[in-house]
């Protein structure tokens, strides 16, 4: 009972509070919304126009007209009423020609009226360059066989704020999509672009479906709003064969293959892997063998083969025993004349004697000696060339070289060519005549200057064979000439033939 007595005042109090709160909320709701959050503002670039639109959050409040005012933050300018946006029923306003500065913070106030009552006042401020929403422009496409023309309709006159937008803030993007392949085209726009703007998307495949979309891309890469996609099917190509691009590609491919092939051939040829060279140097060219024929000696340079017979004699020892007619000399010395420094070398001449393989004996030598007179020629005649006496000369040499001393064998003969035109040849007729005088003196033999009568002169031929070369060979061989044969006719007979003044030059 007591609780019931106390409850009734509480109930009435609570009821009053509830009623008051309800009434208060109702009143408040009926009051104009003056908060900043009453409206949602949006500024967009629609069809190249700057449009400010708003929407009341409280849909229960429906003003019948609006009035728009604005000001800028960067300057302490007054609030400006937009004339063409005063007492308008629409909830948007075209501010393209009002707002001319892009980098500016605009403070906007929108009053919503019903009758003479202001139902709502909305306020906002926004940085236009960052918060303007770019709607895609309107465009048309025209399809061809291998390309598409995209036409974007720009206004005939660009507003100032649009110039600044196109100059710096945004770029036009044209997307081309075929299947899952998307290509973006960014045509260059300047602030002077007006009227219809046409962009050609080329290098497309005929008889293929392509979809095109156009939109603006802001500099700050904010949300992009793409236009509705417009698709088209390209016309089929008239040629059933390869397209022009495929044809060009084939030609280029064939050209590259040919270039690679030719370059490979050239490289292999240069390296010598193929087409080996056969162009030998000129020095190895033996085709003109006639050029390598040893030329014949000029006819005026006749050469006679002469066999030089050297006799190595001991120096004659002067024997003062005049009683003995025989010559104590065992060797036949060739008459030696020395005239004016010249050394005379005599060459034996005579009929070619019988050649024998064996070494000649002393009898052969004697026989050879007896044959000597037969070989004498008329005195008046110049000495003959010793060609016919080649064999005799050989025999003589064998005789003289038979003593077995430091002489050479018969086979160790030196044969050399003597140019008789450059050699003084003396006749041996006087010598032969002396021989006829019952002398066994052998014919004139090559002599050598007397240096030491006791020392046998060395064999010149041996020296020659050792490599030295003497201009005038001297007799070097010794031959076992019988002592009785040899006689020194020079002691008693006529002096040696001094032909120092009587050289016969051939």
């Amino acid at each position, binding site marked *: 009972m007591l609780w019931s007595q106390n409850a009734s005042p509480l109930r009435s109090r609570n009821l009053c509070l509830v009623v008051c709160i309800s009434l208060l909320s109702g009143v408040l709701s009926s009051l104009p919304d003056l908060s900043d959050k009453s409206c949602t503002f949006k500024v967009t670039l629609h069809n190249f126009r700057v449009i400010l639109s708003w929407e009341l959050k409280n849909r229960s409040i429906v003003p019948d007209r609006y009035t728009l005012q604005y000001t800028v*933050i*960067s*300057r302490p300018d007054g609030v400006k009423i937009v004339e063409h946006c005063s007492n308008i029923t629409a909830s948007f306003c075209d501010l393209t020609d009002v707002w001319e500065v892009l980098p500016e913070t605009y403070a906007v106030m929108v009053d919503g009226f019903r009758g003479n009552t202001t139902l709502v006042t909305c306020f906002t*401020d926004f940085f236009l360059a960052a918060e303007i929403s770019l709607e895609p422009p309107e465009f048309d496409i025209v399809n061809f066989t291998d390309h598409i023309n995209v036409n974007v309709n720009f206004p005939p006159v660009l507003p100032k704020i649009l110039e600044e937008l196109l100059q710096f803030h945004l770029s036009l993007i044209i997307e081309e999509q075929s299947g899952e392949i998307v290509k973006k085209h960014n045509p260059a726009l300047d602030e002077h672009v007006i009227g219809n703007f046409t962009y050609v998307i080329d290098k497309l495949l005929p008889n293929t479906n392509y979809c095109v979309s156009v939109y603006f891309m802001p500099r700050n890469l904010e949300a992009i709003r793409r236009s509705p996609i417009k698709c088209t099917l390209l016309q089929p190509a008239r040629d059933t064969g390869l397209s022009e691009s495929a044809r060009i590609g084939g030609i280029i491919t064939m050209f590259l293959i040919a270039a690679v092939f030719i370059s490979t051939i050239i490289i292999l040829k240069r390296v010598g892997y193929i087409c080996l060279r056969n162009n030998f140097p000129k020095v190895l060219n033996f085709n003109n063998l006639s050029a390598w024929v040893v030329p014949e000696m000029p006819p005026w340079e006749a050469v006679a083969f002469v066999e030089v017979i050297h006799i190595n004699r001991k120096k004659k020892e002067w024997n003062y025993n005049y009683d003995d007619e025989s010559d104590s000399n065992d060797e036949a010395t060739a008459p030696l004349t020395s005239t004016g420094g010249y050394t005379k070398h005599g060459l034996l001449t005579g009929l070619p004697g019988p050649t024998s393989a064996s070494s000649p004996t002393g009898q052969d030598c004697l026989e050879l000696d007896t044959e000597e007179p037969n070989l004498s020629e008329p005195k008046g005649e110049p000495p003959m060339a010793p060609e016919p006496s080649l064999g005799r000369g050989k025999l003589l040499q064998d005789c003289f070289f038979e003593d077995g001393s430091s002489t050479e064998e018969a086979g160790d003969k030196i044969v050399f060519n003597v140019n008789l035109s450059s050699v003084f040849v003396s006749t041996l007729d006087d010598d032969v005549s002396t021989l006829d005088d019952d002398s066994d003196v052998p014919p004139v033999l090559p002599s050598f200057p007397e240096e030491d009568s006791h020392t046998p002169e060395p064999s010149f031929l041996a020296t020659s064979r050792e490599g030295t070369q003497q201009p005038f060979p001297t007799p070097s061989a010794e031959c076992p000439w019988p002592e009785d044969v040899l006689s020194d006719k020079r002691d008693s007979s006529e002096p040696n033939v001094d032909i120092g003044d009587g050289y016969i030059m051939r």
Partner: protein
Amino acid sequence: MTSRCILQTALLVYFSTTVLAMNYNLLRFQLSSSSVECQELLLQLNGTSKDCLKDRMNFKIPEEIQKSQKFQKEDIVLVTLEMFQKTSDIFRRNLSSTGWNESIVENLLATLHWQKEHLEEILEDIMQEENVTWDHRTLLHLKRYYLRIVRYLKAKEFSVCAWTIVQAEILRSFFFLDKLTDSLPN
């Protein structure tokens, strides 16, 4: 020998030019990215100017900056460095009255500091390698501009309306800075 030296010198000049061109392209991209990021951070700082219209002030940004006058690339580097430096100095002051999100402010300061360091390095290279005649007049005007902003804040005692006005002004200056860096040569 002479032809070889000439060829080497020509190659050196060509590649040096190429490298420098690439550096300025990279700098342009970096500056643009930094400017856009700073603008986004500033826009995230809540506030309204509805009750601050009486505190508006024309800080008179230099006309050379506002009209995007043609500068040589060295002056662009110097001007952008000055703008990043001064903006960073402003937002390091007393922000207690604004109620702004501290993380947003820290991100803003970090972006400003990073870009400032990068510009200082580039400026040192420019001063060492090239003989440049600086545009001191523009730099002086810029210093005076930021000095007016600081004096305004001090005069308004760093009130929320003062910071709202300054926020809008700095946002506007970054737009002009972005246009300025876009004029860097390739």
